[in-house]
């Protein structure tokens, strides 16, 4: 892939066919194609309707609790002795993660389109919880597909979804994790085309999903710009976020892509290590086609998709959003990775230094902050996306630390 240094803007994608450079697209069965075109039209209409934004802003403020704070992580800053570290507190949103920003937008679209049955896939369960929450709020039927392995390791979220009135369908096919949940959700959608809206949880899938999820999550970066201006009188010097599909990262990054002086880091899950089982599609994969888009994927020499591994169920996916694939190729975003053990260490550090229990997902980003921050000057402003809270992970963390929690 060629490196282009002379782009006027990194924020113009996708093109009308859903491409970010060679990535993205609409690789779906014919049955779904008319539905995807209908969604694209509905989203274009909603964007042009000021009432849509007004209603969304109201729900973001009063139901989600936005804006989320940009918090100066003073003791973490002192601990590393370098960059001045801020956390963007998406963990403080209602439902405990960034996922709700996107779900709110998609559920409002579903309502405009007259769809009463909502389906979703979930890994860690945060997207499932957010979807179940908004379906409860708006009185919609909610069915969440979740890999059977994830149902076991994220039990608190399964209970939350059930309490909110959603049906959780454990997926027993394939590796029984997020990719298989997505397969089953697509199979449901192909079967129930007339009344069903598929609420995808990340910046992946067929066009227009990567675009619309990004747009709904961009509130993270938009707020961060204004908050950092207010706090420090200027933009941050660097941004860092964890990446599974990459929606929290894209939401933070996208409003800054054209600010060339802002360094941007994405952190993939390196599992047991990049030469072993992991979930780092960019570091350990190559371009292929799955779940409606072309992007970096973990696969074998025959193009069969490999099972991903991460201690974090939310990062346990063998692909990455197509816009991230493109931002990697053109060199605008620097993609790093962190192992299970590094994330666990960062998790513990964050709990004790800041009084914040982070989800294992953003703990991956914190793990790389540990390398980057000490090398940077004290006036370097670094924003870490604290994409979710870690209550859901306590049982699996305790198990990995064998009682040394």
């Amino acid at each position, binding site marked *: 892939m060629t490196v282009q240094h002379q782009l006027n803007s990194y924020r113009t994608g996708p093109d009308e066919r859903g491409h970010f450079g060679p990535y993205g697209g609409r690789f779906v069965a*014919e049955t779904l194609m008319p539905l995807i075109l209908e969604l694209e039209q509905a989203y274009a209409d909603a964007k042009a309707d000021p009432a849509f934004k007004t209603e969304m802003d109201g729900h973001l403020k009063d139901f989600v609790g936005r804006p989320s704070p940009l918090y100066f992580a003073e003791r973490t800053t002192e601990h590393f002795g370098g960059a001045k570290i801020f956390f963007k507190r998406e963990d403080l949103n209602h439902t405990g993660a960034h996922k709700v920003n996107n779900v709110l937008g998609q559920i409002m679209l579903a309502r405009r389109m007259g769809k009463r049955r909502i389906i979703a896939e979930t890994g860690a369960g945060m997207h499932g919880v957010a979807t179940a929450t908004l379906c409860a709020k708006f009185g919609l039927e909610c069915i969440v597909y979740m890999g059977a392995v994830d149902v076991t390791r994220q039990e608190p979220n399964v209970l939350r979804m059930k309490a909110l009135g959603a049906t959780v369908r454990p997926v027993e096919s394939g590796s029984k994790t997020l990719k298989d949940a997505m397969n089953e959700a697509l199979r449901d959608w192909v079967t129930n085309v007339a009344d069903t809206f598929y609420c995808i949880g990340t910046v992946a899938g067929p066009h227009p999903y990567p675009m619309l999820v990004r747009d709904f999550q961009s509130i993270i970066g938009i707020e961060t710009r204004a908050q950092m201006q207010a706090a420090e009188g200027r933009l941050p010097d660097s941004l860092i976020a964890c990446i599974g599909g990459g929606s929290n990262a894209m939401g933070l990054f996208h409003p800054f892509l054209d600010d060339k002086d802002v360094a941007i880091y994405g952190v993939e899950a390196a599992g047991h290590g990049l030469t072993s089982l992991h979930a780092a599609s960019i570091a350990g994969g190559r371009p292929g086609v799955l779940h409606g888009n072309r992007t970096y994927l973990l696969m074998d020499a025959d193009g069969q998709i490999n099972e991903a591994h991460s201690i974090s169920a939310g990062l346990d996916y063998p692909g990455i959003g197509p816009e991230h694939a493109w931002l990697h190729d053109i060199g605008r975003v620097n993609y790093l990775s962190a192992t299970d053990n590094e994330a666990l260490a960062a998790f513990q550090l964050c709990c004790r230094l800041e009084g914040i229990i982070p989800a294992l997902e953003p703990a991956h980003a914190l793990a790389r902050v540990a390398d980057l921050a000490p090398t940077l000057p004290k006036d370097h402003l670094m924003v870490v996306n604290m994409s979710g809270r870690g209550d859901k992970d306590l049982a699996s963390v305790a198990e990995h630390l064998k009682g040394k929690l």
Partner: protein
Amino acid sequence: MTTRIDKRFAALKAEGRPALVTFLMGGDPDHETSLAIIRALPKAGADVIEIGMPFTDPMADGPAVQAAGLRALAAGATLVKTLDLIRAFRTTDDTTPVVLMGYYNPIFIYGVEKFLRDADAAGVDGLIVVDLPPEEDEELCLPALKAGLNFIRLATPTTDDKRLPAVLANTSGFVYYVSITGITGSAKPDPAKVGAAVARIKHHTDLPVCVGFGVRTAEDARAIASGADGVVVGSALIDMVKNSLDGAGKAGPSTVKAVTGLVAELACGVRAAKRVAAE
């Protein structure tokens, strides 16, 4: 260019009957048994043979086809070996059309140009790639047509009259009408609705229209084939493979016969159908 598919449908039209199109997963339950099944299909009554290219994540397929793909992969199937199956079949049969059906990623990784060259050389006549709608024609459809292979498109109940011309534009060989909104092997289609849908498609094209998804018995085949140029049966045949396996999942002495037995029944059903909509 006239392919084996074109020739076969022209011959069946002259004969005044619809086609029986059989779908089985390449390499299921193992390479040798799969080859033996494919070799036995024409004599049992299959007019067109569809062979699935195994894929780990078949998003439009039901449990039977999913499991067949995983059995084949566990037995060592690859796209190279699927092409080997067709090459071996062609040493004993040079007339029965063979269509490869599957998902795009294994082809993309194999390399589109190389795949088309190798598929053509192996004796493949057409391709059905589930996750390549007309919006992605530049990926494989147009190169395949250029290479002389048929590119068979799926039309579905959600493909309305406005969209049909786009779906049919680069389609060749035949049109595969998916009779239900759903995954393979699920609900049974309503023959009356299917007949009307085939008539609607035929308003837009001269290509033969074959109908699949949910056809399991000779009676289903007769009923559906009455309103179409052909009927596709897949999951029911794959179930015959599965049910013939021993406790360890290995093919037994009855595996080939179990499949050809059902194919023969289905062929009787298809032959009992009168051609109506085909004219």
